[in-house]
């Protein structure tokens, strides 16, 4: 008991010590005290009133309740909700919603590579950038419309995914991450320095907005519905591939490459496919971004973007579509909501992620497989839930 208390004390003091240089002594002490208080509270609560079992029973009940509602009706409900939502929002919120939508598409794309195939890609932003710039150039130099550019851009991004895949395939884990990181930075530097084509750091202005019939997209609400359609399309496509033979092959490669090979999976092709399939969605996100902003510059495609997208995937729950969507929502909306706190918001975000990794490493809506992987000692989770949730479809 005393040992635990000392640990809490040290932890809070440590937090105070590292925040002290940024915040000043008064805030640091305040932060220490509040962390200490919340940790003590957590400790007493988790021991006494709400036991772990209790939490699990509640979450189980919610689960059985939600599993009783047919998935399709649930999906239709959400689509309906998002269809009427902008009617109650002002332009500022619609704009944030648009950004959220783009990030959802990006995060779902990265989820294919990281969550399913298990290939850590830290240069995902490169495909986002290639998509955005391709559309920008097609629109300003060749006068291609949004709809004519879309298939060309997607093809281009798909090919660039394969091109990155070839050298990266021999690598695993950390090494792969470094190579992809290099790819992301390279792309950004090329965009920054290839003045004749990309206009360098000035970026490309006056990108044509999309048109449907006689309607030219100008208002945020136009983009809202455009993006919503693409988010639904992405979700649907990724859900399908998740449950397909290819999705299974990705999972098998992630779990054990030699076994996958012995089972007759063409691992090289499948990995390339995951890279390029993931990249396609990043490209789509890029096109939407360029069309919405009507301006692109290399600043929008820094390494930090890759990290944020990866955080969305991890926070929400790798491999879970609903989780990734939720993760993207939280990470776009939270910084907006925390705008009042100025520079504390990144700190709060970081602290939130750390707490998440400690208490729920599989993510908010992480699937039972992830949970089993990250908590190998918890047999209860391991045995029961797989029985309920896993429905083999082939």
């Amino acid at each position, binding site marked *: 008991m005393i040992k635990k208390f000392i640990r809490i004390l040290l932890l809070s003091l440590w937090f105070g010590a590292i925040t002290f240089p940024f915040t000043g002594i008064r805030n640091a002490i305040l932060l220490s005290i509040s962390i200490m208080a919340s940790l003590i509270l957590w400790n007493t609560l988790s021991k006494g009133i709400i036991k772990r079992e209790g939490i699990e029973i509640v979450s189980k009940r919610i689960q059985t309740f939600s599993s009783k509602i047919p998935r399709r009706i649930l999906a239709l409900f959400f689509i309906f909700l998002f269809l009427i939502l902008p009617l109650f929002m002002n332009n500022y919120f619609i704009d944030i919603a648009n950004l959220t939508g783009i990030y959802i598409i990006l995060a779902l794309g990265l989820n294919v590579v990281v969550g399913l195939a298990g290939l850590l890609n830290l240069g995902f932003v490169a495909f986002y950038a290639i998509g955005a710039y391709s559309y920008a150039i097609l629109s300003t130099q060749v006068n291609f419309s949004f709809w004519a550019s879309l298939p060309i851009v997607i093809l281009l991004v798909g090919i660039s995914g394969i091109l990155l895949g070839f050298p990266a395939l021999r690598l695993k884990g950390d090494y792969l991450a470094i190579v992809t990181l290099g790819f992301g930075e390279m792309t950004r530097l090329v965009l920054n320095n290839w003045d004749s084509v990309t206009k360098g750091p000035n970026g490309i202005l006056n990108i044509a907005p999309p048109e449907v019939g006689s309607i030219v997209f100008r208002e945020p609400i136009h983009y809202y519905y455009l993006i919503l359609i693409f988010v639904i399309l992405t979700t649907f496509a990724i859900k399908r591939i998740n449950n397909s*033979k290819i999705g*299974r*092959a990705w*999972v*098998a490669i992630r*779990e*054990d490459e*030699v*076994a*996958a*090979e*012995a*089972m*007759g*999976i*063409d*691992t090289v092709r499948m990995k390339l496919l995951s890279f390029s399939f993931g990249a396609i969605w990043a490209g789509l996100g890029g096109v939407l971004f360029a069309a919405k902003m009507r301006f692109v510059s290399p600043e929008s495609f820094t390494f930090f973007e890759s990290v944020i997208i990866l955080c969305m995937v991890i926070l929400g729950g790798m491999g879970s579509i609903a989780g990734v969507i939720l993760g993207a929502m939280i990470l776009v909306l939270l910084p907006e909501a925390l705008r009042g706190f100025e520079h504390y918001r990144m700190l709060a975000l970081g602290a939130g992620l750390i707490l998440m990794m400690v208490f729920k490493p599989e993510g908010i809506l992480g699937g039972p*497989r992830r949970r*089993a*992987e990250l908590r190998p000692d918890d*047999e209860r989770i*391991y*045995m029961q839930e*797989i*029985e309920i949730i*896993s429905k*083999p479809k*082939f």
Partner: protein
Amino acid sequence: MLILENIHASYGPIEALKGINIEIKEKEIVCLIGGNGAGKSTTLMTISGINRPKRGRILFEGKEIHNIPPHRIVQIGISQVPEGRRILPKLTVRENLEMGAFTRGKKETERVLPWIYEIFPVLKEREKQAGGTLSGGEQQMLAIARALMAKPKLLLLDEPSLGLAPIIAGKIFKIIREINDKGVTVLLVEQNAKAALKLSHRGYVMETGRIVMEDSAESLLNDPEVRKAYLGE
């Protein structure tokens, strides 16, 4: 059915196979025995295409297969049960089996499953459990069943008794015989030479990348050299 002609292969920088010749006829159980590092596992890896031979030819039903990638080799009818089982621990038993039929498609999966469950009733019981929760013997059964899902003509087994209690290992060997009775040719690599030879029709003895002896299983069991070196007498 399967012929290895003068196969040379390396395992990393080491030349693990120095020109071996093996022939397997249809419906046979053939075993490869030998000490650690003799090149038994490399032989299997080379047949299944995961390891490419440096020289020599591999013929399967009259066709050269040593230049074919591993996933195609599964398609033409050779499945391997890798050493150490290598099941997918977080996938359910059923999902593991479905992965085994990856090259065969959905209809075939439905058709083969009852046949598999007939040989391995315990897997039917554990259908929805995660593969990692099975006992060692059950995992080995799952690994074998998974390889069978691809409907192979030739099954390559790498140390199926590894890490199992003798009584469970015996059970596994019995199952191998049963599979062979159903018409599947088997190439077996084993440390447990006695059990392997009792099960097999013919055997090869390997030493440091070479075949040093080749005979019917019975004669190998009675050979004084083999008895001394591998049967602990």
